């Protein structure tokens, strides 16, 4: 992985930079000792590490402004960081950069159930948002797997999804407004508790811009009334392709379940050893399909889903009959990533394909994996075609990481070639930066970079992400 050569001039001025940041934020808001900076050398893409020059942990929008002004004045790149759970290296620093972490900005500012919104500081965790409103019968819909730890700031930066976005949409569909600090240190309010923008949809382009257009310090989020109940059905199949075809048929049938999750045999076995969820061990793939509503409504939807599933000769079709059974079914799915860690090191991909192409891509992925001699497990949000192939490798064997990355790139190219995209919810970060040219041509990328030119003319914010380094080089020159 290539990163830009750090600017020696900035590194040489570390003492001055730190002194000015301390003056702006106080000593407890700045981290600069080498041993403490180690905690910020990577995010959840742990294969790549580099300690930053310093870390600032502001508590307020005003402190964010102060920190940005110091960095802008000294020309130090700023790498925004939510909770550090990015799987694409979104908050991977460079040696000359200052990490701006929002983890201390974690307050709930306003709850308005009558108008169905909550306003929060952006460092609050995803789960804490739902936690703040669930007693009143509401929830915040986007639910990435990392929701216990991940911050709303990062969710907005990556436009995060989750298991239930088939019905409720992703972050951008549930974000009403932000307070944004620009690279020049200006504070702007975009959107609010009302629906839809006044002029250009700047909120829409800020969401998913990977921290490159500004620092989101506060957010207004839509909250929804919690459903009366929810219940999954577990369906096992004799092949991954049949499971994939069943997904498309369920979608086609006219019922939109709240979630359709897919796991293949390798993943089922690893998960079962780990979580003992009671999954069938003889199937090649299983689907977890969840319906919501009152008991009668759930019955009505599951009846349609079971009818579709039965046309695909399922080996197992098990409807949860109790909360305990439902919890067990979801426990397995939610511990899948942890369980996969028992099999070895892994790379988690995030390509999206049209649901109709699932069988073809599952077959293609298996063939590619075989050609590399590597194992790939599949566990993903099938309803929206967001695949998460996990490439298992041994980091201690020389060259195997590179082989795994090459296989990953081949699988992502396959996703693009069938009409899909490189990333559905993890973001481009550094991980998929160099693959952008497979999905976009030069003019497409320039148009995107021109948006950054407007928001951040000096390319101070997270400059080495999203765009191929060669494409962004002349702009990053600064």
């Amino acid at each position, binding site marked *: 992985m290539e990163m830009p050569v750090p600017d020696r001039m900035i590194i040489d001025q570390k003492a001055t930079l730190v002194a000015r940041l301390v003056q702006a934020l106080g000593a407890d808001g700045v981290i600069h000792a080498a041993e403490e900076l180690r905690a910020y050398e990577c995010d959840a893409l742990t294969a790549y590490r580099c300690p930053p020059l310093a870390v600032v942990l502001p508590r307020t929008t005003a402190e964010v402004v102060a920190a940005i002004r110091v960095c802008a004045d000294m020309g130090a790149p700023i790498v925004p960081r939510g909770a550090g759970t990015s799987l694409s290296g979104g908050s991977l620093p460079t040696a000359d950069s200052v990490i701006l972490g929002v983890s201390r900005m974690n307050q709930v500012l306003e709850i*308005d159930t*009558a*108008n*169905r919104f909550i306003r929060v500081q952006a460092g609050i965790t995803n789960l804490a948002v739902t936690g703040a409103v669930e007693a009143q*019968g509401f929830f915040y819909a986007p639910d990435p797997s990392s929701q216990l730890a991940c911050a709303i700031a990062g969710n907005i930066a*990556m436009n995060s999804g989750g298991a239930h976005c*088939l019905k409720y949409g*992703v972050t951008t*569909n549930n974000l009403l407004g932000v307070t944004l600090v620009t690279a020049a240190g*200006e504070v*702007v309010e975009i959107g*609010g508790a*009302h*629906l*839809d923008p*006044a*002029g*250009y*949809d*700047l909120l*829409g*382009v800020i*969401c*998913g811009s990977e921290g490159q257009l500004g620092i989101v310090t506060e957010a207004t989020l839509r909250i929804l*009334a919690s459903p009366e109940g929810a219940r999954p059905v577990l369906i096992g199949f004799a092949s991954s392709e049949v499971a994939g075809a069943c997904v*498309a048929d369920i*979608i086609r049938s*006219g*019922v939109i379940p709240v979630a359709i999750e897919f796991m293949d045999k390798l993943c089922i076995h690893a998960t079962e050893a780990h979580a003992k969820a009671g999954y069938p061990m003889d199937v090649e793939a299983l689907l977890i399909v969840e319906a919501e*509503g009152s008991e009668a*409504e759930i019955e*009505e939807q599951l009846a*349609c889903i079971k009818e579709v599933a039965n046309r695909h000769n399922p080996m197992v079709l098990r409807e949860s009959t109790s909360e305990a059974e439902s919890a067990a079914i979801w426990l397995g799915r939610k511990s899948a990533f942890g369980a996969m860690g028992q099999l070895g090191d892994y790379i988690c991909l995030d390509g*999206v*394909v*049209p*649901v*109709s*192409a699932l069988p073809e891509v599952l077959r293609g992925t298996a063939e590619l994996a075989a050609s590399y001699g590597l194992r790939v497990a599949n566990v993903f949000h099938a309803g*929206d*075609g967001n695949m998460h192939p996990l490439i298992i490798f041994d980091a201690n064997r020389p060259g195997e990481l590179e082989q795994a990355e090459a296989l990953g790139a081949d699988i992502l190219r396959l996703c693009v070639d069938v*009409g*899909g*995209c490189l*990333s*559905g*919810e993890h*973001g*481009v970060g550094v991980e998929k930066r160099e693959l*952008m040219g497979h*999905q*976009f041509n030069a*003019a*497409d990328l320039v*148009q*995107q970079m*021109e*948006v950054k*030119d407007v*928001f951040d003319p000096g390319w101070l914010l997270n400059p080495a992400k999203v765009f191929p380094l060669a494409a962004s080089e002349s702009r990053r020159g600064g």
Partner: protein
Amino acid sequence: MTVLTPRDEADLAEAVAEAAGAGTPLEIRGGGSRAGLGRPVQAEATLSTAGLSGITLYEPGALTLVVKAGTKVAEIEAALVAEGQMLPFEPMDHRALLGTEGEPTIGGVVACGVSGPRRIQAGACRDAMLGVRFVNGRGEAIKSGGRVMKNVTGYDLVKLICGSYGTLGVLSEISFKVLPKPEAEATLVREGLGAAAGVAALNLALGSPFGITGAAHLGGGAGGRTLLRIEGLTGSVGYRTGQLLGRLGTGWEAVSGAESAALWREVRDVARFAGRDGAVWRVSVKPADGPVLSENLSTAGLDHAALYDWGGGLIWLSTAETGDAGAGPIRRQTAALGGHATLVRASAATRAAVEVFEPEPATLARIAAGLRAKFDPAGILNPGRMRG
């Protein structure tokens, strides 16, 4: 005036590049049914998307529809109905309100960011858009997004293009997420609640788990008609109707099927203001503020009529088209309450004299102008449509 009618995207790119080179301002035109939205454009030529028509790809099993920008909305809806599907965001037909003719195109819907009553539950036009292809003001064909349900690959220019009134690029193709058409629908109707109690009832229902897909109050003062829509599987619609009737108090009646659908077409198209003289404003605030805004306008002495959609958060105001057509008092309210107001219907002279779109704070105005300069450096795409 010259009318350019490119036959495909390459042709379109060439036409725009030529206009950029010559500095010829273009008015972009789909079906013409929304031509009166925004500020009047001073153009030397009309660029018609009529030649860019047709469904490129429709995969009902993937809930995906890809269409060329000049495709008629009616053609799209017919294709979707044949497969039991629909555009989720229920776009308004502006013809009756604006008194225009012509066949609405999907490009016009997207350029104006048009959403209808179901927006509160299924999202806006921008939320259903999976990808776009457009030609920027340099005459370059650009794509963003794609045709899959989730996509965070690169910046979301799809959102930026939606509602930019053709000032950032000329749309050539759009992909949408579509949804199954609900098996059944019902509307709960209550007469005579008045705006404050009507909107309160709407928000009580919207705060329930019963998946309201339409929440409108028509008519102001002490009377009016309050409407709540429920859609889905037949059994579920029956169940939720019953639950809501139990919570809403007395005087509500349920209608279903075609009768229900007709009510929402009226709401969607703002039919009550269609035959009425004067200016029409479209205001977005948080739902509970809807009736407050109308009351405050009356207190300020602005004679108006109000219709409420989106649980009270979308207010259609009918005002006399004299002076600033009410811009002053209306914008004082949006500034105080948080939200924005757009002048939707007025003569070209009024739309040239009054700020049609909510004025932006300086930083946002600078960002908007900066984006326009990057996407359309020669300033030839619908110049002046959004800002003078």
